């Protein structure tokens, strides 16, 4: 089961998104969060993605993201030191980490 989340992954919606994600990860066996609908993200949103990943680690079930994210969001993550890391076996699934790009 995939979890769709809100279009604005920003501070205004941070609380509700956090609650929904936490509930979804806890109840899902293979949590996959679809970011296709995300149009806007800020630092609080990025923190939520990292926190979701950590939640999965804590519960022993890896949390992955999926969906085509917009170029704006990709650039915002990249410009601020974050990057999308794809799951080796599946190009569609990725996680968000500190950027590993070489300078």
């Amino acid at each position, binding site marked *: 089961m995939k979890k769709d989340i809100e279009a604005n992954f920003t501070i205004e919606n*941070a*609380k509700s998104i956090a609650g929904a994600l936490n509930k979804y990860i806890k109840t899902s066996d293979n949590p996959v969060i679809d970011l296709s609908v995300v149009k806007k993200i800020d630092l609080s949103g990025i*923190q939520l993605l990292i926190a979701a990943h*950590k939640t999965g680690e804590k519960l022993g079930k890896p949390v992955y993201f999926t969906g085509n994210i917009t170029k704006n969001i990709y650039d915002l993550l990249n410009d601020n030191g974050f990057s999308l890391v794809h799951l080796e076996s599946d190009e569609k699934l990725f996680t968000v980490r*500190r950027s590993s790009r070489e300078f």
Partner: protein
Amino acid sequence: MNSDQFKQAFIEESMELLSSLESRLLEMEEDPEDSEKVSAVFRIIHTIKGSAAMFGFNEISDFSHHVENILDAVRQKTLKVSRELIDWTLKSGDHITAFIEADDNIEEKKELEKKSDGIIESFKVAVGMMKPSEMTVNNGAEASGENSNEEEEELEESLWRIRFKPTEDIFLSGTNPLLLLSELADMGEHLFLPKLDEIPDLSEMEPEKCYTSWDILLLTTKTMNDIKDVFIFVENDSELQIVEMPLDEFITEEGKPPKLGAILLNRGDISEKALESLLKRQKRLGQIILENKSASEEAVDMALKEQSFIKTVTEKRTEKTTQASIRVKSEKLDDLVNLVGELVTIHAQIERHSREYEGDMRTVVESLGRITENLRENTMSMRLLPIGATFARFKRLVRDLSAEMGKSINLVTIGEETELDKTVIEKLNDPLVHLIRNSIDHGIESPEERIAKGKTAEGTLTLKAEHAGASVRISIEDDGAGLNKKKIYDKAVANHLIEPDAVLSDEELYSLIFQPGFSTAAKITSVSGRGVGMDVVRRQIESLNGYIKIESEEGKYSKIILSLPLTLAIIDGFLVKVGDRYFVFPLSEVEACIESRYIERKNSRKKMIPYRDSLLPYVDLREEFDIGGQRDEIDQIVVVRSENKQIGFCVDKVIGEHQTVIKSLSGVLKKAVGFSGATILGNGRVALIVDIEGIIQHSRLNEEKCVDGK
């Protein structure tokens, strides 16, 4: 380096820059929208200005400063690239050159300084930066207005480490930390390392709190205060640490990235004591630290990324400071070539003596031979320069001359990368200038004439350089009127150079224009037509052991081909013996060796022998040079190819390949026909180096004399 050496280095560097200024300007004129080309021109003047000020050439620095201001307006797109701008920048370049050439002549410098203001004012008027009525200088105001800009460019870059931990409530104040980062990003090259270990999992998280902090590396010309200004509204609530990194310390270990331990220590992530004890182990430090839990995985990861960033930054800076090449006085290079020449000769002597020995001695001499040959090739390659720089100089010549003559000419250059000996290149300039002037003046017609003839209004002049064996062929071709055979013939008859009924091939006819005083130009212009050019050109090319040839088709084109030796110092030769004399042929021109029985040839009137299904003309060197002694029954014929002609040379004995150090012939021997130089052999004997074209000509004349019964 003493001050004179610095001064000399400045002069050399500036002359090089000024020479590239011309070609850069012409490129900029061709493509005025390309900001990189505009910047390249700006940088040249900027560098000259800076260096001149550093070495005390204030008059050059002041003048360049004003030129730089004008070019800066072009760079800022407030001034357009125009013909006037190019013209006046070229003139300014000439003015700077005159300053440099005036050197210590104070009187001359004063004169030039008087002209400086006038040139700048005229420049500004020409490009519309000043009205003619305003032609009084107010340098003070102008200079102060530009200073800040200039200082910024000369500022050094520093590497800063910024640790930024926003207050937890930063989101609630409406501040977006990512915008602050974006401001920093605009300041220069950067690395943002977000620290994520304080972000909890969702069950423990307060989503409206900020848990992220950053370690930031920023390479910028900005100051500490500029950086602090970015954080001015969050400074009080956030943790902010800005430290300048000792980048120069990282550079001292050339080529090596900064050590991970040094970075962790510098970041305060590990204690010196812990680091020391861990370094004693023989594992990768990162691994040991993690195993030992001396620093967190995140700290090591961030330090590794920092290491990679610093490595890139230091490499870039090292590239800037390390010279990719060193400047050596050409005299030193000439000395080196002479010494290598001596070594080649000595090696030949050793090799000769070593023939008496067996075993190790022979092996050692063979090794010495290989090293000598490598050394020779390396040294010679150091003297080779691409001809592109010479070609580039002609762009301006063509541009100025065509404007003067009211012609429209496009200069095409091909083979700029072709390399030639430095000496050959230096001596080639004048002949090429003559030939290009001739093409522009006599060759290419005026636009009206060209249109009337059904050609494009714009003429094309093509300069081409290419390798052809051990020679380089340079051609100057124009699509102009071509050579008028009848005019040349009539003029030659009038000048008593040929008989009125003489029958000449095209090649022979064209070669008449190399006779002294020969000019068919109807009128003498400042460019050419005085008849002093072509004979001088031929002499200059011949003095380089080269030769010159003309191809043309009336009404369509004329093409002057110069064939020049790749080098004037050492060649691979082919050594032969006739009687007790030695001769060397350039090996690159030797095609084959065959045997021939004298008895079969001696009664034949024509000097021809059968060779590969055809007849090969040959020159008998014994007869040609009147060498005495007993002839063997079987002669050796060395078959050479020169300028698409095959010819044989009859010799007694073929000795083989020989590294030939060319010594020029001087004194009475200088005018000897058929030899381009001499070389000293291992046995101390002198061998003459055969000039194949020369011998062919000489032999042909002898034959004609014989046929004429003279």
